[in-house]
């Protein structure tokens, strides 16, 4: 059996916030609430859900860019939440992040070469000549020409900047990358170019990804396993093919059904979820999805569903619902 690269257990991240309305009491916003999953080497886990459901917080907590409140994050068997600063710094070589807006994460006053080289400098890797060669290698890897290295980020289009962000994330040969909505700000024609690049890099370099997106089509294309989040929790998790072919959780089904088909489909019946996502400060009782769930019954209001695990085709799938959908 392959050992997991990443094993996340009961991860929790709460933010202290002021209560709404007339309450000035400190309350806890449960941005990530008891999340567990495992990721095998070379695999990509797609993380999907409506905005505010905790995807970015989870992504940052995995890298300890934001300190989780509790839980465990085993990276190659070692819990990174137990590491001290020095250990964490060494570990970070293997763990990188790519952001939605590469411009915001790239310093405008540094050339492309300096930007990509920075992680090598920070970790003191190679001689200056070796670093230069590595940077040239990286820029070609992401499909840009070495001639761009002396230019500044603002001179590039969104797609090119995202390639630069990817080159930087790859500089230290990481085993694991959290990609937070990396193509969401790009136009469709460029989006597909960048997705193809990421997929090539997955295959070529064997990097594992947690790939965050609100776009279910993008998630399907890029992922091996998909986790669907709602109000800080993973409500369904399965191999990509089973999740898309037969969602078990009504929320997954509703998300899939809301994606506009890219062709005219007169009369196609879509499930339109009523209302908005409730506040994560005081989530609804029982199953937190019940006020919007088309399948909800009386029990859903009072009793929190427990996670069910099924074996299907050599894969495990998990879902948290009293009345899961049939096949």
């Amino acid at each position, binding site marked *: 059996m392959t050992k997991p690269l990443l094993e996340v257990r009961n991860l929790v991240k709460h933010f202290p916030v002021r209560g709404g309305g007339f309450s000035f009491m400190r309350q806890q916003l449960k941005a990530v609430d008891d999340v567990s999953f495992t990721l095998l080497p070379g695999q990509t886990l797609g993380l999907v859900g*409506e*905005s505010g459901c905790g995807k970015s917080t989870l992504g940052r907590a995995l890298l300890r860019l934001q300190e989780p409140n509790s839980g465990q994050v085993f990276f190659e068997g070692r819990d990174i939440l137990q590491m001290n600063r020095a250990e964490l710094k060494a570990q970070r070589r293997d763990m990188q992040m790519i952001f939605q807006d590469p411009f915001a994460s790239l310093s405008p006053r540094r050339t492309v070469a300096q930007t990509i080289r920075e992680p090598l400098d920070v970790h003191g890797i190679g001689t200056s000549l070796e670093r230069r060669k590595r940077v040239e290698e990286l820029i070609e890897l992401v499909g840009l020409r070495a001639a761009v290295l002396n230019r500044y980020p603002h001179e590039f*289009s969104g*797609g*090119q900047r995202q390639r630069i962000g990817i080159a930087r994330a790859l500089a230290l040969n990481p085993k694991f990358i959290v990609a937070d909505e990396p193509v969401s700000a790009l*136009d*469709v*024609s*460029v*989006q*597909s*170019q960048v*997705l*193809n690049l990421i*997929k090539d890099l997955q295959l070529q370099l064997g990097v594992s990804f947690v790939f965050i997106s*609100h*776009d*279910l*089509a*993008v998630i*399907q*294309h890029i992922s091996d396993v998909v986790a669907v989040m709602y109000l800080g929790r993973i409500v369904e998790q399965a191999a*990509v*093919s089973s999740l*898309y072919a037969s969602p078990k959780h009504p929320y997954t089904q*509703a*998300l*899939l059904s*809301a*994606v*506009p*088909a*890219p*062709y*005219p*489909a007169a009369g196609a019946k*879509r499930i*339109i*979820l*009523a209302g*908005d996502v409730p506040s994560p400060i005081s989530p609804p009782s029982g199953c937190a999805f019940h006020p919007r769930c088309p399948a909800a019954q009386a029990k859903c209001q009072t009793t929190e569903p427990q996670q069910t695990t099924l074996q299907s085709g050599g894969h495990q799938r998990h879902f948290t619902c009293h009345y899961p959908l049939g096949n």
Partner: protein
Amino acid sequence: MTRPVLEVRDLAVEFDTENGRVRAVNNVSFSVNAGEVVGLVGESGCGKTVTGLSLLGLVPSPPGEVVNGKILLDGHDLLKLNEAGMRKIRGSEVSMIFQEPMTALNPVLTLGYQMTEVLRLHKSLSKRQARNAAIEMLGIVGIPVPSKRIDEYPHEMSGGMRQRVMIAMALSCGPKLLIADEPTTALDVTTQAQVLDEIVRLQHQFEMAVILITHDLGVVAQTCQRALVMYCGELVEAAPIEPLFASPRHPYTQGLIRSIPRIREHKIDRLPVIEGMVPDIAALPDGCHFADRCNRVQADCHERSPVLTPSAEAGAVACWHPLEPQHD
């Protein structure tokens, strides 16, 4: 016989920029019939918003200037109106909603105040009548307990609710034409589905025409009867959506349709792409602006600019070597 509510002829808009004068919209002509939903689609920077703003006399000037064209609303040329005349049209005959409602709503005024202001300006209603009309309109766009929410401030509402408020305001005076500029781009798919449904429902109820501006062909496919495809400030294809999606004529339209990420029955290894990127409008290539990315390009494409030419299928295409229409 359907008659056009709006007819745009040879519209051209220019901007003064650091790199000199650029033409953001070039010789754009189209019409919109009463009760029709038309999609205006293309990638960012292709001139969709500027086209929409021109229809309301809202192109910021300077740096922008409408340098040519006619915009006929029920036969009357809006470009001939002065600012006072235009203000009468705006909101009452033609309304526009934007991607980010927060920029269009005043954060320090209640919804009620902002909505009644519009109504009183155009419809000489009393305060009480205007308030009642505003509450009714909020109810129509699906806001729960409108009589309570009318006294809230914009920041107290979610993104989807704010967009509904914008729609309510835009429709409160019963315009003939609604221009919706990326109204669901900032929303989750779930909320997007709600808001698009609402727009379609209201369009029927109020029998108005809608121009839906979007970069998302999926949104066009779900909501529009006809689509106009823009590239580098020009219309490159116009067609009813069934033939457009089944058998696009312009290579750019075909590339766009193919590159939409879609949920597939069987995963594919590589997504189809349009190679290269959109050229800078300050330095457009001669001839066809799409030539550098086109998989059907021939020598003459670099020499002469194709013009939008009507074709047999009630569509039009600007290409020297268009794809053959497919029949099934």
